[in-house]
């Protein structure tokens, strides 16, 4: 029992009680009445006084009742409240997990429950909020608890800043929405810590004379925070959390566990699609399944392509293994591979069904469905513009290229004049260069690999002619083109000395002792890689690195945005951002969420890069824009659409057993039991009610003359 405003009540009592007593005695002006004789009355009074005990008290019964009423009102004024701890004025941080695992329906503590864990967590958080010491009615006292609410999955969001407004906090808690992402406490914890004021020290200036307070950035001071984590314990990055010392009244980090420790779940943990290298129309879909059931399970994996069920395969899973010593459960995994022929871009959906009569055997629905957006089986079409080199033709024809055309420079110019170059993904120029057009443009928009020549036009290199024999001494090992190469062994019999002028957009990828040997030019629509020297006068064509270089070049230049995409590039995980490139002329870019709502306009960077999110829901996202379309994009009514599949695919998140304790960086916190949340009880309304009751009793006595 604590008192919110005892001083106020004492002050009022000091004034009111003497006033009441004085007023009472002043009030007692007896009404004069004339009676025939006072004889009997006097006798009666004397008899009564002689016989009755506590006569004085009885006479003042009304006064006593009034004092009781006043006392009750004064007690109410002091605002008594019953709390478990006497501590008030705390700062609480409520971290509420909203990740995918909180969607599990064992919030009631049983597998067959109807409530999700998030709902249970919200209820407990609200219970905690209701139990906070509220501010007194009369003054802004510092005794009120303040709480901040942070909802987090992998990302974190402050849904309510520090406030003592309970209703606001409850509304904020109720407003938290479930997401489908994995969870990590790191961002939430850092977000909470960032709210703390920086520690302030007195800058002594080295000579001990200074008095200026200085904030130390990064070192947090201020009041201690009391963290309350409402979660099932399936939270990543717990080791960033450092719990403060527990105070006498309350632990500094309390873990309110929801969900059932033995919750059973079967979920997808991996979903990938791959096209056959030789025959890109062959599509393989790899499905990874995890079960946390200790009994062996068999689930059906259903493959849907474009909404139609194509295949159903049973996945047999062993029972999860329980470590006998630690009690930790090692989930069993299994998988299945679907093979299908699908040259077109499709949406592949995999659905796990646990079968009938298995209620409670799979408490999380979210991880039973996975969606993949598979782009069409399209490979780069390459045109070799050559005057007759043998190496390149042989090397390129050895690569897996769907369409290799070989043409002379004259044929290329014809094609260029006809404006048909857009059909070719990559032009390989062998010892030649496109001619500059009338406007001085050398490269039309497209991708180019130039062997044995360099671009010397505006923004190009300075060609200083033939150089001596030399070696490649340095190259960008991190560049996708050269990542897997070793160019140490390449010896040039004849080199070409070039120089990249200052301010040029050209980037040198490999250098000889004489200067750049391979340069990349990347402007808005044009990407060209130029090998300055002629490989015919080197040992490179005989080195394996030459073929690898060509393959990488075709891959790198030929599969850029707008031509082809990696089959798994269109997969995102809830909690992360959707990032991609759209054609630079895309306008009015919007994202359509799985639930059908449209986002606001997304502004693309100048190079077409867009970022949206972090996304929260599982399902199919659709980016729409108006403008030119990439190769795999769908065009409908002038709108270009590109699809993305968002899947949880997170083994730890699908392992739903609620954790009984959390290992923080400095200690282990056990889950506090369900009943431990003590609700704060305000007593003043009851006291006022009692005062009203006594007042009515007094009124009744006054009227009824029923003086006891």
């Amino acid at each position, binding site marked *: 029992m604590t008192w919110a405003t005892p001083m106020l009540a004492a002050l009022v009592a000091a004034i009111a009680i003497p006033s009441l007593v004085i007023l009472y005695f002043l009030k007692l002006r007896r009404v*004069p009445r*004339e009676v*025939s004789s006072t004889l*009997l*009355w006097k006798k*009666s009074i004397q008899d009564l006084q002689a016989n009755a005990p506590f006569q004085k008290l009885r006479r003042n019964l009304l006064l006593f009742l009034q004092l009781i009423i006043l006392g009750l009102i004064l007690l109410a004024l002091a605002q008594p409240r019953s709390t478990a701890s006497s501590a008030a004025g705390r700062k609480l941080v409520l971290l509420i997990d909203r990740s995918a695992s909180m969607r599990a329906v064992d919030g009631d503590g049983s597998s067959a429950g109807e409530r999700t864990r998030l709902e249970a967590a919200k209820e407990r958080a609200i219970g905690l909020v209701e139990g906070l010491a509220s501010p007194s009615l009369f003054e802004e006292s510092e005794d009120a608890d303040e709480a901040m609410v942070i909802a987090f999955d992998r990302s974190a969001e402050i849904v309510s800043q520090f406030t003592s407004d309970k209703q606001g906090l409850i509304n904020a808690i109720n407003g938290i929405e479930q997401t489908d992402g994995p969870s990590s406490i790191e961002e939430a914890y850092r977000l909470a810590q960032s709210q703390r004021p920086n520690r302030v020290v007195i800058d002594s200036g080295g000579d001990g004379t200074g008095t200026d307070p200085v904030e130390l950035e990064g070192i947090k001071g201020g009041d201690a925070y009391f963290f309350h984590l409402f979660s099932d314990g399936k939270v990543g990055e717990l080791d960033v959390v450092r719990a403060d010392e527990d105070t006498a009244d309350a632990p500094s980090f309390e873990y309110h566990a929801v969900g059932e420790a033995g919750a059973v779940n079967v979920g997808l943990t991996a979903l990938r699609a791959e096209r056959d290298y030789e025959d890109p129309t062959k599509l393989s879909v790899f499905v990874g399944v995890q079960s946390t059931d200790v009994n062996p399970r068999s689930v059906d994996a259903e493959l849907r392509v474009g909404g139609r069920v194509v295949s159903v395969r049973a996945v047999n899973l062993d029972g999860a293994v329980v470590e006998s010593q630690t009690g930790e459960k090692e989930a069993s995994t299994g998988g299945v591979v679907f093979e299908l022929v699908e040259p077109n871009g499709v949406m592949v959906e995999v659905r796990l069904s646990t079968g009938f009569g298995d209620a409670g055997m799979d408490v999380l629905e979210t991880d039973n469905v996975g969606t993949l957006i598979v782009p069409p089986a399209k490979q780069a079409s390459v045109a070799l513009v050559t005057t007759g080199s043998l190496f390149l033709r042989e090397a390129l024809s050895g690569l897996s290229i769907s369409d290799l055309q070989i043409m002379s420079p004259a044929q290329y110019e014809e094609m260029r004049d006809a404006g048909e170059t857009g059909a070719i993904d990559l032009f390989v120029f062998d010892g030649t260069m496109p001619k500059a057009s009338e406007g001085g443009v050398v490269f039309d928009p497209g991708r180019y690999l130039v062997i044995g020549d360099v671009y010397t036009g505006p923004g190009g290199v300075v060609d200083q002619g033939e150089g001596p024999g030399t070696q490649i001494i340095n190259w960008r090992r991190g560049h996708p083109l050269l990542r897997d190469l070793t160019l140490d062994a390449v010896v040039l019999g004849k080199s070409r000395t070039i120089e990249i002028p200052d301010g040029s957009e050209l980037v040198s990828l490999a250098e000889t002792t004489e200067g750049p040997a391979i340069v990349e030019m990347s402007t808005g629509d044009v990407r060209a890689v130029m090998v300055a020297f002629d490989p015919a006068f080197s040992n490179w064509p005989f080195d394996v690195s030459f073929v690898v270089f060509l393959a990488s070049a075709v891959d790198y230049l030929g599969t850029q945005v707008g031509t082809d995409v990696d089959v798994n590039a269109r997969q995102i995980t809830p909690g992360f951002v959707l990032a991609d490139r759209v054609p630079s002329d895309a306008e009015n870019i919007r994202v359509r969420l799985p639930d059908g709502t449209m986002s606001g306009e997304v502004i693309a960077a100048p190079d077409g890069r867009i970022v949206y999110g972090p996304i929260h829901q599982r399902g199919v996202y659709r980016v729409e824009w108006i403008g030119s379309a990439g190769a795999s994009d769908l065009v409908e009514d002038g709108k270009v659409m590109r699809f993305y599949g968002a899947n949880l695919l997170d083994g730890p998140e699908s392992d739903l057993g609620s954790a009984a304790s959390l290992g923080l960086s400095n200690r282990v916190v056990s889950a506090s039991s369900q009943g431990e949340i003590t609700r704060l009880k305000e007593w003043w309304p009851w006291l006022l009610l009692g005062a009203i009751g006594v007042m009515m009793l007094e009124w009744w006595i006054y009227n009824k*003359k029923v003086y006891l």
Partner: protein
Amino acid sequence: MLRSENPTRPATIEELLSSELIGKISHLDVSSRKIFAGKLKGERRSKKRGESVEFADHRPYAMGDDLRHIDWNIYARLDRFFMKLFMEEEDLSLHIVIDASASADCGEPNKFYYMQQVAMSLGYIGLLNLNRVAVTAVGMRDELVMASLKGESGEQSIAGNIRDLRGRRRTHDLARFLCSITPEGGTDFGQACKRIAMSRRGKGVMIVLSDFFMKEGYETGLRLLVGRGYDVFAIQVLSPQEVDPDISGDLQLRDVEDGDMAEVTISAPLLKKYKENLSAYCQELRDFCARREITGLTIQSDTPIDTLLVDYLRKRGLLR
């Protein structure tokens, strides 16, 4: 019990004695348990035999009757009590003493008005039967008023007096006298009774109408009246409010006679105690009367006059 705010002050005989009442009481006569020697010849038949008395009638014994008048022979025969009633002397003296103090001027219906009505009725019956009727109003009056009223001084305890009325034609004199009395001031009952006893000639029936709320006590007065040989009837008139007070709250009660104050807070125990005291007081009065061969009667001022006369007083042998 409270002083009446607008007490009824009768001005005419009609207000004191209504025609219906006259019809009801005309056949009544005053009787006495005692034998009195009359001064003048009366209208009625008389059979004097020396000192002996003429037996008149029997009536059943009622509570409070004097045991000395029980006919023991009849008791021996019938095993029941009967009272012996004796024939009046021809000339019966009827003396009515009325309490004209302020305390009588209380209650609703007003006690004094009630007493006036009773006195008028009884006086009328007396006059009708050719008895000698006298009325004395008892109450303290200051000397000056009394002097102007009576032409003599020192009569402080007697507020008014009318004597030797006989015959029906004096009815209006009686009524005028009763109307002239206003209740006020205190009483000195003992002194008044002494004066009455001393000035009284002859014996007869005496009726005392009062509330008997006398701080100095009524015993001395009544004793004096009885001692002179009167057949005394004490009729205690109480207002309904005195029997069952309807007051509440914190009160300062002021005695209308002597201004005495009593501060009371009305409560259930207090009211209970008051009622106990009242009944004890009345009982005490009745016991006293029984011992002194006085017929005592307590009546509430809301009792109809004819009920009192035709029923109660007949039962007690005052009227027949």
